[in-house]
């Protein structure tokens, strides 16, 4: 096998890995603040993709232009979901809280899946724009414009998020809540509001990833579970609550998956899942994470 095939495969893996990272960062952010795992995260990503699809097919708005509006819509939906469904759980004992949030997320994923089938049929959809096929070559490797932009976008968003978390007061409040919510409350931080906005951010981040998927790949109502699993794998690899590491772990997963296609073909997803199970078993705090205890 030539190095070119290998390198091209690796490259494609990195492109999609950026999206994995973007999806995972949203999930990790939510877990860090609320200590709840939203297993409907993939469905939020899907809804973001469909929002972009609607903007395009109904109003002919370019997906890169509708990226932010779609994200904003999901931001609002996310806040609403938090307020209605997850907020009532926040007062519960930790173990019950996590279990119930898992179940709520599960119920939500089924409802959204069904809703999507009803609204958009079970067929695969994709946004095809004029520049869908464009790309450039570097070092003999192909860089499809859209997929490459996906990586660029993910990087920009993550960097912006990092700035937000380290330089703004609210960002610091989010980090404080993640480290010690009781003390955060004692500082005068409104934990309810912080959780709600964080959940909204998580949904918005997922939506952005969804937008790129709708343009560069394809969306369909059943994709939620697939993406939730990807995000879960990445979050566990990076360590629950490790927001920064999630991006790199995402790129890593994408790269490993893509390259393993060359060796094990259709079992590439299994590779990711097996790594996931191994990490769960051997190092639940993740490859780069701190100990949960």
């Amino acid at each position, binding site marked *: 096998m030539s190095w070119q095939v290998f390198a091209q495969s690796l490259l494609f893996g990195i492109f999609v890995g950026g999206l994995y990272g973007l999806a995972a960062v949203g999930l990790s952010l939510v877990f860090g603040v609320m200590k709840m795992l939203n297993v409907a995260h993939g469905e939020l990503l899907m809804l973001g993709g469909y929002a972009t699809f609607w903007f395009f097919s109904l109003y002919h708005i370019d997906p890169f232009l509708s990226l932010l509006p779609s994200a904003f819509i999901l931001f609002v939906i996310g806040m609403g979901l938090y307020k209605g469904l997850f907020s009532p759980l926040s007062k519960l004992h930790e173990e019950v809280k996590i279990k119930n949030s898992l179940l709520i997320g*599960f119920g939500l994923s089924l409802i959204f899946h069904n809703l999507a089938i009803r609204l958009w049929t079970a067929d695969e959809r994709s946004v095809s724009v004029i520049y869908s096929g464009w790309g450039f070559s570097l070092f003999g490797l192909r860089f499809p414009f859209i997929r490459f932009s996906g990586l660029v976008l993910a990087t920009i968003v993550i960097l912006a998020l990092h700035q937000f978390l380290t330089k703004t007061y609210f960002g610091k409040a989010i980090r404080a809540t993640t480290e010690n919510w009781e003390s955060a409350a004692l500082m005068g931080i409104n934990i309810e509001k912080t959780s709600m906005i964080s959940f909204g951010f998580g949904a918005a981040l997922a939506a952005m990833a969804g937008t790129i998927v709708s343009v560069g790949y394809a969306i369909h109502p059943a994709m939620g579970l697939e993406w939730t699993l990807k995000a879960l794998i990445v979050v*566990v690899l990076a360590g629950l609550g490790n927001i920064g590491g999630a991006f790199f772990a995402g790129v890593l997963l994408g790269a490993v998956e893509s390259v393993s296609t060359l060796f094990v073909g259709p079992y590439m997803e*299994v590779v990711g899942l097996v790594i996931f*199970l191994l990490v*769960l078993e051997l190092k639940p705090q993740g490859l780069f994470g701190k100990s949960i205890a």
Partner: protein
Amino acid sequence: MLSSHKKILLLSLGVSVFLALVPLLTKRNDFINILILIFLYICLAQSWNILAGYAGQVSLGHAAFFGLGAITARFLWVLGYPFFLAFLIGGIVAVVFALIIGHPALRLKGIYFAIGTLGFGQILKITVGNVLPTVADLPGDYIATYSLIPRYYLFLVLAVITVAVVYWINHSKLGLGMVAVREDEEAAKASGVNTFRQKMIALVISTFFAGLAGGAFAFYQVSYYHDLPFSPIWTFDALLITFVGGVGTIIGPIIGAFFYTIFKELFARTFPELHVFIFGILFILVVLLLPGGLVEMAARIRKLLTSKKAVAPTV
């Protein structure tokens, strides 16, 4: 007067006998098929209920064991082995896999166990889907001799036995141990309960019956894609049914299975999958507001009605 224990047993016996007579009373296949589905869902949900409702371990990989039972039973049966043997081996294969992954998996904390089992289920589904992407067909002579009646009885007996097992667990020391683990694992461990063993036993019983349910499915469904029994929908069905009915109760999954199947059939022509949507919403409502499901709701209504009859206290 008979004790409530005896009353329940007598009632169950009566219902079971009645159900056993159904094929003799009607020739309507659609009616029998609905009952078969109800029995299938009862077994699927109750088996999940044992692990999640009683031992408190929420598994999201139930479909894996359903699938293992289905694929084993189907293969052996099509190869010519007597179905009953294939069916039992299917259950055993499911248990073997459960033992292998149970050992590492049950040591994980709640949420990790849930997503770990989810991952495991996906691995099996993808693998089977890749190795056997085709439809599982029945040989011509099997189809020619296909009769709904034996399948009806197989499912009926399976459902009855599964419910009986749950009933037994509910009243046994084993069940107490499981519930102790469910309520507070640390405290149970501290008071001398071998929590790992309890969880393992629950897992074995749960997956055995899931495997049997899968085997029965393989016997009943003439053709299906090989990876269908491994699809996460089966896990979701089990969760929806058990929770809406009443998790951790004996009758909950039965009520849930009944309504689930009825809704499914009701909307099959107009809005397929609407039953999932409805149950999804009910499920969320149950988790947030009524953790005991329909069973709890029935109990509350009963209390409301009987308290109205109470005599006003004298001042």
